[in-house]
């Protein structure tokens, strides 16, 4: 084996220009593989950060209380229409009992207790319907990274403060520090000061959301205790499907993974990933064809030498190993050079931090270059590609090959 490797190495070094060209070709394929991996992976990361990145990965919401049916049994058949209330009357009580349990689960990054509902924002004669989100002070950025979206003021929600989206502020011609009236669907009115203006870059949140402190929300929705919703952020958002049932089993509450609400997003990401696989498969195929054809030519060129080796007592297996080893070495060298070139080129692109809001640049993630996989697959592909020429070499009739 060692000796076959020596002969393979000698053959490669004897034809330096041809070997260099071959390794260069393989390296190009590996470079494309790595670049595509970083681009497709980065793009997926970018989309996730811009969408699911600001979503709760697991949500616990109090189940809506069905309205009581006034159905006098004696009146015979009655047509009933049941309409769920839009008021956030369903609450999660005793959060202190289950929050510590959830916090103790591995992979839980943060928990946000919220009171959500709807209301109207009024300034002078202007009235706009808004979604009101009551967040715990100090926990404003646990789910959506509000702090990073704030363009004016602060994300910290104090008593009497409200955080509004930029579009809403522009539509109502508001400025930081002004006071506005916020009336909840429960009819309670609060006069609040605009302490921060944010821009998420998305029409809905920027136009329709108003963030207040949990204390303010309690007043607005007349909820002296409990919350309407608990949102959980995980270290790995893809762990949500596994963790949600655990939380449900642990607390008895209806914990839902974000994927239940984002099937289309997941489908899009899968389609994108599949496109990436196809492109990478083509890159690998190019490598395999290149190595196979080059080694077939080498086999033809070295026919007399193969015949001599066979005459001197080299078995078919030995000849096969010589040619397979050449394929493996070409694949390994091309893989290493391609991976190094790929890493070097990717370094020139902006880092992953540029995926954040307000920053531009190609969403290439250098960490997702799949360097090891590229080297491994290339070496494996080159070995597989060399089997056909190696078999052809091993089956050569030594007498014919020597030409004596």
């Amino acid at each position, binding site marked *: 084996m*060692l000796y076959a490797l020596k002969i393979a190495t000698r053959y490669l070094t004897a034809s330096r220009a041809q070997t260099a060209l071959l390794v260069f070709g393989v390296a190009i394929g590996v470079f494309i593989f790595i670049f595509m991996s970083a681009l497709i992976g980065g793009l997926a990361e970018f989309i996730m950060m811009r969408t699911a990145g600001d979503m709760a990965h697991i949500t616990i919401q109090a189940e809506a209380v069905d309205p009581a049916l006034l159905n006098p049994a004696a009146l015979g058949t009655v047509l009933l229409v049941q309409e769920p209330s839009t008021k956030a009357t369903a609450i999660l009580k005793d959060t202190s009992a289950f929050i510590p349990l959830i916090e103790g689960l591995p992979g839980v990054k943060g928990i946000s207790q919220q009171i959500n509902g709807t209301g109207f924002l009024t300034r002078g004669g202007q009235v706009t319907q808004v979604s009101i989100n009551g967040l715990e002070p100090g926990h404003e950025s646990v789910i959506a990274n509000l702090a990073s979206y704030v363009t004016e003021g602060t994300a910290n929600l104090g008593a009497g403060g409200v955080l509004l989206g930029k579009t809403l502020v522009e539509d109502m011609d508001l400025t930081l520090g002004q006071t506005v009236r916020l009336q909840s669907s429960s009819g309670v009115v609060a006069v609040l000061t605009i302490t921060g203006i944010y821009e998420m870059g998305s029409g809905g949140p920027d136009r329709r959301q108003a963030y207040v402190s949990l204390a303010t929300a309690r007043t607005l929705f007349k909820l002296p205790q409990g919350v309407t919703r608990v949102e959980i952020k995980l270290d790995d958002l893809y762990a949500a499907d596994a963790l949600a049932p655990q939380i449900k089993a642990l607390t008895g509450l209806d914990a839902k993974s974000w994927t239940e609400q984002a099937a289309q997003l997941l489908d899009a990401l899968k389609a994108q990933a599949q496109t990436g696989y196809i492109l990478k498969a083509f890159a690998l195929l190019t490598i395999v064809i290149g190595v196979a054809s080059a080694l077939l030519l080498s086999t033809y060129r070295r026919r007399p030498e193969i015949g001599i*080796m066979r*005459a001197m*007592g080299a078995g*078919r297996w*030995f000849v096969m190993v010589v040619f397979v080893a050449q394929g493996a070495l070409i694949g390994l060298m091309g893989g290493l050079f391609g991976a190094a070139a790929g890493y070097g080129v990717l370094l020139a692109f902006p880092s992953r931090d540029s995926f954040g809001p307000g920053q531009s640049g190609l969403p290439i993630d250098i960490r997702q270059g799949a360097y090891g996989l590229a080297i491994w697959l290339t070496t494996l592909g080159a070995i597989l590609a060399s089997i056909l020429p190696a078999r052809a070499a091993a089956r050569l009739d030594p007498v014919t090959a020597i030409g*004596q």
Partner: protein
Amino acid sequence: MTALLEVRDLVKTFGSGEAETRVLRGLNLAMQTGELAALLGPSGSGKSTILTILGTLMHPTSGSHTMLGLDLTTASDRALTEFRNLHIGFVFQFHNLLPDFTALENVCFPTAVREGRETAAARLRGEELLVRMGLSERIHFPTANLSGGQKQRVAVARALMNRPELVLADEPTGNLDRASALQVMDLIGEINREEGTTFLISTHDEKIAAQCRRQIVVGDGLVTG
């Protein structure tokens, strides 16, 4: 002397149907250990085919082939490869060295391919052989830088590397000038005398044949003299 090899009723045909060519037509031949024999005959008489079959590079169409008491007629490719490596050496007309390797690496090949690596013992034996062939200054030379005569002496050294019982040489001097041819033949004769290695040398050259103690003449696929 003891019996080294024997072929009986050896027939070899190439092609089939109307294109069939019968090269050997029931050839019988026996050789003893330590012989130095020349294989003579006109072109197309079957000399190369005999060497190829005796060298276990080809099966006969029919007949029997034994060497060192072993029946090689129907042995597997693997068994023949191993047998060839241990017991038979080859010297070809055009030396047929591995061009990307040095003289020493070429000589060591038959041992290295068996042992899986070039051992120190193999290198020592290879160097001794090259010194004996008068190539002490060319041991680490790439074979591409050697003259025709030097290449053929490297080929002889390679054939002797595994101390084979039989060396088959197909026109070993056919591509050399007279001086180089005599030098190669002197070396062959010396090794035959000193180590008892059996040589069967195919040649057209009667002067070369005259240096051998036995002349085997083939014609029309049979031994005629």
